[in-house]
């Protein structure tokens, strides 16, 4: 197998991930305002939509731009529409299972942009769009038994392999009904993932993800409205 050697690469990857998160978390400590705080997300991760799995991740929004526009209500006084554009950086762990074929494990870091706005005059109802570029470490475990020829016939081995997995994804979400300043969101996310190496080149994988996002913040101020 010409795939990456699993353990050393994975260690480097985890170290890099930790270092990256640490830098972002603390270098921006002074601007760690009520507008931006760590979020966690969990959801269904379906490789090819129907090969079921789970995903969990954290993300950190930063560097926002806020636009406020006033609008008249149909009945009643004026209200504000807030549009916020922000960068997000995140890291995720995902797992999926294709019956009678293989299990896949994926660790990724993602960087992208999110546009979030409130829905009409409801202060705590938002929708958002986001796109993200990612880079991941992918490991698969073949189901069943794997054998390879040896000097004494065949040896049973753990059938697996590793690859790097760049990705491009887009996400849409809307807030759950809540009176809290930081409502949760439900979202749907479409991934295109590129497994490298595969065969004599690479393989495209598609995944559909759906879940919830919540903020770690206990602030009483909304993440979008000042």
């Amino acid at each position: 197998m010409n795939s990456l050697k699993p353990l050393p690469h994975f260690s480097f990857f985890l170290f890099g991930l930790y270092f990256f998160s640490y830098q972002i978390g603390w270098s921006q400590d002074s601007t760690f305002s009520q507008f931006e705080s760590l979020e966690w997300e969990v959801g269904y991760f379906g490789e090819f939509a129907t090969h079921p799995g789970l995903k969990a991740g954290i993300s950190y929004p930063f560097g926002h731009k806020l636009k406020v526009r006033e609008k008249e209500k149909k009945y009643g006084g004026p209200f504000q529409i807030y549009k916020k554009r922000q960068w997000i950086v995140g890291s995720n762990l995902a797992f999926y299972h294709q019956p009678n074929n293989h299990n896949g494990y994926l660790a990724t870091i993602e960087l992208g942009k999110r546009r979030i706005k409130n829905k009409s005059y409801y202060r705590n109802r938002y929708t958002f769009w986001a796109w993200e570029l990612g880079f991941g470490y992918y490991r698969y475990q073949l189901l069943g038994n794997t054998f390879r020829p040896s000097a004494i016939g065949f040896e049973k081995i753990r059938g697996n392999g590793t690859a790097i997995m760049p990705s491009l994804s887009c996400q849409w979400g809307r807030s759950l009904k809540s009176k809290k300043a930081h409502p949760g969101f439900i979202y749907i996310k479409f991934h295109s993932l590129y497994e490298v190496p595969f065969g004599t080149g690479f393989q495209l994988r598609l995944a559909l993800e759906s879940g919830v996002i919540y903020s770690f913040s206990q602030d009483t101020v909304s993440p979008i409205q000042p």
Partner: protein
Amino acid sequence: MKAYLHIFLLLTFACTPESPKPDQQSRDLIWLEHAGAQMPVWVEGNTISNVMVIILHGGPGGNALIYNETSITMATELEERYGVAYWDQRISGNSRGSFDEKEVSVELMAEDLDLLIDLLQELYGPTLDIFLLGHSWGGYLGSYYLLDPERQAKVRGWIDVDGAHNIPSLTRDALELMEEVSRAQIGADVDSREKWEDILAFVEGFSLGNVIDTDDFVEVNLQAIEAEKLAFSDGLTAEGEEDPNELLKGLLSYFFGKHHPLTALTNRIQINQTQILDEAIANPLSDQLLRITTPSLLLWGKLDFVVPPNQGLDAYNNLGTPDNQKTLVIFEESGHSPMSNEPDLFVDIVVGFIEGLR
């Protein structure tokens, strides 16, 4: 009292037979890792029969599970009697791994097959009778494999189904058959007359040089597939298995099945970038088939535009197998896949062949 109960339960379960029932059906997934590739083999059916039929799928770059999921009669009937190994060749179907495309060759695929036979005999018994069933491209691979006497000794019987052992020659035969059938259909003024006229125009406008290359073959092959569909819709070939839930089953298999459609597609694209087909075109096997003496069953569809029945005759005439151990059967109402067009007859003939050699 409790102690008696424990003893009773212990004796009851201790007496439960653990040996498999005679009709036990295996459903094993094994992977063969060799020279950079991880190739899945789904072994299904009656593996205690001491007979294993290895499916050599078409392509290059097809997949073996299609024979399990769409040729239901063949799969069910063969699996009831024998073990059937659905093997995805390297860069085909669900195979994985990573390697340099320059390393891929017919010989490497034959080495994979050789290892697979050894592995199956190690797992299911050293006296396992191996039968190779090669369809289309699998016919080339199987014939190539059997050219080596040492490898030949491991195989009890060879079932060649519309096998492409001579690609330059089959390309010429395909053009001839398309011309013959399209003229007949145009003469009969069938509803699809216009489409047959298009095929005839293609044949008449196509000029084959002395040397047939991959482009020639691919162009003729695509037209032959069209002719095959047309013959089917005109009722020239039999409908075979009718399954009212075919679409639903297809969708379920696509999204929830054992195979991964994107992996299969990627492999199909990648294998077309290798030299496999060029190598097979440059090495037609007709003149070498004399080296094969394995008992052989040659099965061809009369209206196979992809690998015409003349190729069956060519294989029959050139095989080194004694006349009383080789048979050519032409399926009158079949195209490139008699196991789909005339499944009952197909199974009867295959089972008869295997039983005759056990």
